[in-house]
């Protein structure tokens, strides 16, 4: 019992550090990548001065994240006069908490036997490197992600500001619309792997296909599904080209116009944490999770696997996150009606056709076996 608690606590700690650390790193990546794409230098002013010797550590602008934090914390905490105080203060947390919760379902490593390294305290126990190994993982992630919408609606409504309310209305209709496409985009992969359990999916992606040329990853099995998922997930996260709810040039900052300091930072941070979560789900569903293609290192170095699995997993997650930021700085913003038309009249039918085709294909394969 105590051993179980210790392992779970270590997993939670590790997951929190990785999730929040990656989200912070992504704020820097967003600055630097956008600068590179616009032929600028990007974040380069913030430094830490080493005492006594006159050396300034700039470290490629990495300290800007720290400066951001300090700035946010020292800002005035403003609450509009006629705002609903309780709901106004509650809203950022309702947006942020589900994002953290979703990470509990993500497996970032295979089965480990701590007995081999830490001795008899863990005698005879095996743990999957996942905080909550539940058999309905894929569905639970969708269920939890739905809760974020409530926070967004509340933030706009409680601010008692017309821009905020407009932002909320836009956000809610957009998130409800694209949630359907998001759910449908994951179904073909659930059918292909024959399970809702995220770890089973990763195991199913081991090995190779087409005579060993390609790894048996979801992205090669069904590339269209991957594209639909990434599109719907970006829309769900309200980032460019789908950032209608917070379109600066139209409605200031949308639903969080009235928020300042750390409360606004929570909204921003939730957005970056969600990029990480989206990437995690993408890696689990489409990029073989914590495994490397062509090489089963867990078989050759079973002791190293405990370090290698999370490392490989988070490197993959980082690459997918960077791709999302790349998209954000490449595309222009949709207009409101274009966005809804795209969701309902293009993405949703496409996802449905995709499901039908995958089901037919799987049926044919089963029939010929």
């Amino acid at each position: 019992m105590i051993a179980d608690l210790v392992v779970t606590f270590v997993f939670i700690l590790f997951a929190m550090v990785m999730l929040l650390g990656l989200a912070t790193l992504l704020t820097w990546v967003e600055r630097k990548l956008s600068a590179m794409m616009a032929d600028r230098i990007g974040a380069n002013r913030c430094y830490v001065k080493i005492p006594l010797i006159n050396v300034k550590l700039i470290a490629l602008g990495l300290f800007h994240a720290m400066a951001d934090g300090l700035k946010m914390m020292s800002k005035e905490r403003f609450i509009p006069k006629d705002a609903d105080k309780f709901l106004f203060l509650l809203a950022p947390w309702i947006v942020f908490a589900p994002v953290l919760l979703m990470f509990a379902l993500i497996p970032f490593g295979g089965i480990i036997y701590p007995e081999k390294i830490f001795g008899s305290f863990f005698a005879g126990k095996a743990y999957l490197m996942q905080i909550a190994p539940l058999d309905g993982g894929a569905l639970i992630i969708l269920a939890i992600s739905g809760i974020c919408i409530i926070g967004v609606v509340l933030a706009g409504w409680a601010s008692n500001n017309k821009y905020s309310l407009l932002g909320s209305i836009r956000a809610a209709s957009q998130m409800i619309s694209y949630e359907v496409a998001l759910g449908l985009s994951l179904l073909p992969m659930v059918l292909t792997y024959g399970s809702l359990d995220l770890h089973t999916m990763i195991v199913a992606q081991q090995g190779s296909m087409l005579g060993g040329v390609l790894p048996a990853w979801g992205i090669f099995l069904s590339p269209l599904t991957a594209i639909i998922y990434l599109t719907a997930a970006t829309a769900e996260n309200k980032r460019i080209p789908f950032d209608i709810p917070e379109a600066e040039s139209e409605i200031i900052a949308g639903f969080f116009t009235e928020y300042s300091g750390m409360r606004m930072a929570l909204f921003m941070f939730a957005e970056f944490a969600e990029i990480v979560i989206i990437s995690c789900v993408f890696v689990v569903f489409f990029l073989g999770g914590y495994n490397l293609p062509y090489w089963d290192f867990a078989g050759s170095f079973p002791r190293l696997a405990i370090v290698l699995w999370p490392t490989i997993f988070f490197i993959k997650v980082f690459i997918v996150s960077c791709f999302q930021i790349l998209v954000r700085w490449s595309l222009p913003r949709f207009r409101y009606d274009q966005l809804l038309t795209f969701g309902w009249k293009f993405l949703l039918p496409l996802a449905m056709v995709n499901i039908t085709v995958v089901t037919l294909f799987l049926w044919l394969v089963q029939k010929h076996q």
Partner: protein
Amino acid sequence: MLKLHLLFCCLAVASAVVMLLVRHPMKMALALVATMLNLAIVYGLSGAHVLAIGQVLIYVGAVMIFMIYVVMLLDIKDSSLVRPLSRYLFAAVVVLLLIAGISYHQLANTVTTQTLQAITPVGDMLSFRQFSEHFLEEYWLHFELSSVLLLVTTVAAITVLNFKKGTESL
């Protein structure tokens, strides 16, 4: 496990009571969301993960969000809503205490810790595979019929929308 179970049962009842007491529709809706989330946790602790997910996915993720959306769109700023709690709060508390007292009196002798433990199955009772197989074996016709019903509703909604558009242009 049993204590956790009881804690979330109490939280569910408490947020249901809050839902009845507060006057503002938005806070009411939020209290209902809290009730449903607590219920989902109770289901999850009882091993019925399928039910728990259904509760969150359908009731919180779909039904309640539409309710909150509608409350937001109406943007009610009625002066009668300035008062946060109902006028009949005192009477409500008296009745609540009465009901609580009577139920406690009735249940205290019959319900012991053993009976509570007996109704609290712990662990994986129902996996998704089992649930789906049972569900689709027994209720496949109902399932298909309800999907037809949903399709009819969608078509009806679109027709009503188009009808309104037509009258506006006239």
